[in-house]
């Protein structure tokens, strides 16, 4: 087990290295540099700035020093917010994105699991039909489209909720729903299918035959087994919640990492782009690792080799 985790962690190194290399190469292919302003800076100033940020050195040397610095937790300096380090900027925006993502994850799991299991326990009831309808239709409506439609309904028409911003609880409602809607729908669908499958297993019939109460059968025998395939889904779900926050943050003017990244791209802020890309990739990879390990804890039949 620990060997497995170690190997997976080691596998992160080539992934992040390749990612950082590609990002780095791409950024230097981008036309225009970080000093492009509406008013042209004098060449001497540009030269000085380049020297200050090490941009006058050969590209490969810049890359190597970037990697070395990253390993020390220093993601470099933002070229646009010139007095702040990228690590600092990311750490400032992170709690916002994390709050949003965590709330969306809680909503996803709560809604997806309860709807999926309830639908399976009462197959072909109205509850089941609602679940199937929700799962099939909402799984394919993009979060930002749902967000826009919610803004039109709840902000424009009903004047109930603010269109965006950050800081008060009611500003969170729409972004969290928009972010959680697709993963919750996917989760509900998989939970329902997997619970139905377990309900038709022989050991459930045996449990009935033994005279166990409905309650014990459902919660101890069915759910525990039904949730195993559901767990594999959480890895991609977390990845989705993390990267899905990009558009949602832009839509609802939330000052999180997604908006930071988009601003960085527009401003050609090499340091900021690089830092956010690596950070996102790292979070996604670690989330997948955690889920894979959890998978083995829940299902002892799974062996790691």
């Amino acid at each position, binding site marked *: 087990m620990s060997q497995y985790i170690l190997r997976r962690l080691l596998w992160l190194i080539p992934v992040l290295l390749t990612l950082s290399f590609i990002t780095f190469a791409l950024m230097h292919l981008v036309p225009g540099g970080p000093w492009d302003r509406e008013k042209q800076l004098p060449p001497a100033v540009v030269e000085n700035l380049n020297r200050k940020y090490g941009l006058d050195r050969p590209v490969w040397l810049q890359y190597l020093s970037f990697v070395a610095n990253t390993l020390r937790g220093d993601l470099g300096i933002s070229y646009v917010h010139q007095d702040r380090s990228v690590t600092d900027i990311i750490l400032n925006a992170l709690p916002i994105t994390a709050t949003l993502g965590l709330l969306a994850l809680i909503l996803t799991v709560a809604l997806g699991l309860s709807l999926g299991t309830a639908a399976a326990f009462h197959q072909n009831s109205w509850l089941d039909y609602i679940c199937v309808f929700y799962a099939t239709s909402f799984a394919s409506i993009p979060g930002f489209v749902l967000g*826009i439609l919610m803004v*039109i309904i709840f902000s424009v*028409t009903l004047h109930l909720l603010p269109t965006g911003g950050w800081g008060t609880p009611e500003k969170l409602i729409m972004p969290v729903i928009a972010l959680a809607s697709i993963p919750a729908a996917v989760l509900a669908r998989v939970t329902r299918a997997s619970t139905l499958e377990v309900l038709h297993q022989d050991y459930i019939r045996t449990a009935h035959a033994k005279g166990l109460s409905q309650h014990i059968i459902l919660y101890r025998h069915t759910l525990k087994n039904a949730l195993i395939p559901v767990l594999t889904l959480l890895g991609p779900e977390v990845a989705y919640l993390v990267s899905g926050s990009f558009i949602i943050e832009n839509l609802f003017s939330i000052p999180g990492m997604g908006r930071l990244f988009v601003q960085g791209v527009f401003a050609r802020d090499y340091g900021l782009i690089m830092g956010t890309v690596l950070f996102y*990739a790292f979070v996604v990879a670690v989330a997948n690792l955690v889920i894979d390990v959890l998978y083995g804890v829940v299902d002892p039949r799974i062996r790691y080799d």
Partner: protein
Amino acid sequence: MPRPINGITEADRLPRRHPSLWRDAGRRLLRNRLAMAGGIIVLAMVLIALLADVLSPYDPIKQNYNAILEAPSLRHLVGTDALGRDALSRLVHGARTSMTVGIFTQLIVLAIGLPLGALAGYGGGRTDNLLMRFTDIVYAFPELLMVILLQTIFGGSIYMLFLAIGLVAWTNVARLTRGQILSLKEREFVLAARAMGATGAVIIWRHLLPNSLGPIIVTVTFGVPRAIFLEAALSYIGIGVKPPTPSWGTMVQDGYGAIFSFPHLVAFPALAIALVMLAFTFLGDGLRDALDPRGR
């Protein structure tokens, strides 16, 4: 009449008509109402995209400062935008943009994913290991992030947008193709082909790929709405299709600032995106069920 040999009559020797896999799948698909509804909408969208110039009542990029931000009326069914452009014409041409993006990105995805997956699956060993580790690495990239990065670099033209999305989205097809070929390549008909002297390329192209077609079609059907979504999202942020090319994402972005006064300018393109995504998903679900009845 010749005597039956070993009890086999002439009639037995005539080739019997088997319902082919595809005919069978087609029948199942036709019975699936949700999938058919999706299919009809997809077909309608393709037609709208093809006939955009005929269908749209106005030039989608012609600005008319005498008719700015008009409410929906008989002259402009969906109203006009802040530059006096007819919103319906822009919606119709936006369908063309979306469908083009959806289809061309999938062509790129196939062009990269099929050969890579086939090579890995058929080659096996070190080739497989190398190609799949590479696929794993690309798969680990946060999709939207990479497309945004690529798009800022390639910038501008819509062809580069195809490339940016295609370069990130091919991993699913590669993995799937590899899996299919792995499961097929030890089967007897491949052995038979090899015994008859078929080369690796012929076996892959004539025997393995045609037999893997079903799942690949399903994956591509799900890939189209994914690409359409990415285009809309990029255009919404402002780095997708360049103006004045009409795109649903751009329309949402253009209208969003004035959403309180003119919500219809945002609502229609948003609904159009949702409709296309739904239609493709329903069609994809139906195709999957039709091609693989066991998966239900």
